[in-house]
């Protein structure tokens, strides 16, 4: 889950400007990226997560070519049949192939998750860094807006807006979800920018005469890159959960298109009697979210060793 990092710093005593500073460690530091990769590889779970994620992507996009049925086919000879040689994941009440349906749902969820994360993070990086660096009314308006949107959960607002999606492309859903997700990341980027703004290399650039946009792009953004990468992964996970949650109620991906959420919703009522309707989509969804979280955690450990997360 995305945790606001500024929560910690408000608790712990912040550094006071004092008369003398402790002497620095004079020893040399080995190359940065080498260390990052080494740490990531050592987190076996994270590497496993990445492998699983890649496998899931392959399954979602290449899997349909292996199956015999497409997700719109109906096999009138096999209603509500369990997993068999002909239908690997079984069939639904209308004879649709659960394997094909599930993979189609996975495709949707994965793409939506990725797109939302990219858009949201990109937008958050731009707006957060400029708001943080320039301060003033731009910053205040942005923060006020964020606070407002935290008051009403995005889920509810998107649900309210969902009738507008009927009959339109799912890209609209992507844009709307991204429009809500970017706020939280933007706030975190803003916080980091504010602390970087007073860093001496930024001050040096300013007193050199470097222009404000150049400072943001050359000095601020690359130095929040690790934070952005970590947050992007978290956003993927949140986006997938949001989308499937919305689709569960019919507020997200609309029929005739299929989402893991809608499949799970369909399978919920008969989960006990016909477990394959619920089981396969649910299991794959959990796998996706789990592996994304593992990768995100591994990245956080690798890029930001001071964050002190899981062992």
């Amino acid at each position, binding site marked *: 889950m995305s945790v606001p990092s500024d929560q*910690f710093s408000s608790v712990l005593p912040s550094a006071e400007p004092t008369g003398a500073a402790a002497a620095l460690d004079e020893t040399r530091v080995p190359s940065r990226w080498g260390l990052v990769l080494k740490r990531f590889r050592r987190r076996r779970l994270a590497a496993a997560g990445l492998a699983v994620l890649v496998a899931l992507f392959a399954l979602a996009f290449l899997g349909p070519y292996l199956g015999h049925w497409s997700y719109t086919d109906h096999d009138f000879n096999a209603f509500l049949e369990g997993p068999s040689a002909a239908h690997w994941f079984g069939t639904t009440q209308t004879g649709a192939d659960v394997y094909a349906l599930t993979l189609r749902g996975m495709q949707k969820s994965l793409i939506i998750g990725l797109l939302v994360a990219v858009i949201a993070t990109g937008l958050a990086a731009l707006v957060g860094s400029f708001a943080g660096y320039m301060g003033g009314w731009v910053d205040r308006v942005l923060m006020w807006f964020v606070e407002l949107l935290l008051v009403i959960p995005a889920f509810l607002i998107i649900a309210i807006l969902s009738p507008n999606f009927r009959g339109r492309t799912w890209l609209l859903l992507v844009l709307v979800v991204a429009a809500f997700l970017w706020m939280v990341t933007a706030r975190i980027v803003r916080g980091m920018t504010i602390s970087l703004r007073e860093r001496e290399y930024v001050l040096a650039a300013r007193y050199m005469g470097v222009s404000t946009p150049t400072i943001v792009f050359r000095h601020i953004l690359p130095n929040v890159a690790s934070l952005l990468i970590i947050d992007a992964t978290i956003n993927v996970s949140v986006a997938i959960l949001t989308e499937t949650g919305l689709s569960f109620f019919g507020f997200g991906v609309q029929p005739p298109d299929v989402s893991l959420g809608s499949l799970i919703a369909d399978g919920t009522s008969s989960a006990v009697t016909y477990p394959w309707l619920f089981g396969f989509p*649910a299991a794959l969804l*959990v796998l996706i979210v789990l592996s994304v*979280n593992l990768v995100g955690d591994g990245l956080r450990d690798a890029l930001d060793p001071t964050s*002190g997360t899981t062992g």
Partner: protein
Amino acid sequence: MVKFLLRRLANSLVLVGIAASLAYLLAASSLDPRANFEGRNPAPPKVVVDRRLDQLNLNDETPLLQRYARWVRGVLHGDFGRTWDGDSVTAEMGRRIGVSLRLLLIATIVGGVLGILAGAWGAIRQYRLSDHVITLLSFVTISIPVFVLAVLLEIAAVGFNNAVGVRVFEYTGEFTPGLGGGFWTHLGDRLRHLVLPSLTLVLGQIAIFSRYQRNAMLDVLGQDFVRTAMAKGLRRRTALLKHALRTALIPAITFVAYDFALLLVGATFVEKIFGWHGMGEWFVDSVTSNDVNAVAAVSCFTAVLVLVAGLLSDLGYAVLDPRIRVS
């Protein structure tokens, strides 16, 4: 400090107003109650439909702002309008609020306390077996969406019931309707219905809080004052509980407020799946049935709850953190 809280209260009221208005305006422009009438067979004449919609303040041909103004006037008098069936929204809300609050309070309190303790324990025993176990369990639980978790627990309950031969766990509704017997029978019945939905939310909360608290605790553990406490002669465990945990509670309190909005969404799923007639279930049903006023009412309720949670956490923060109190 009182001034600080009063300012927060004023700020919150403004936010509630704006959030609720936003919800109403979006609902009124996105949802289409007219379609409910038009979908009937035979379709009533337009004039009749219009009159009915006007009565209920749901007419999409009336200018949006006019409907909004009428709604606001009603709300300020405590009347949230009418459902598209003609019932009172306020009355329905009254019936449903208690249901939701029951779930939310249990989840917050039980989940929060257990989660904080689990997180602190994991941090103290960093890298040992108990830490790994707690971390792994939290991690997996967070990765399971609420609606999947709810169904899984339901399946498990059914299995358990069958194995034991007695319906120990109930998974539909809040209580068994038409049940005879006295106070204890009813209490037992309610508890049996309460376990699964609460457990779904509580597990998620424990997982989230324990991860957060573990990080907060680790940050605090690295601070010098824990070392000072030990240098004074306190045993490690005492220093950790008295000094580290107490300090690490401060971020936990602020996190409760932040987490509350997520909890509300989770509760919506739980209510729907377990058939609890709370605000969450009502929201979903209302959107599906284009019930604008009900949707607006639930949004208002949500905003108020989130802000109350925020105010309570501010209060808790002020109590726990002397730096706020004195300055």
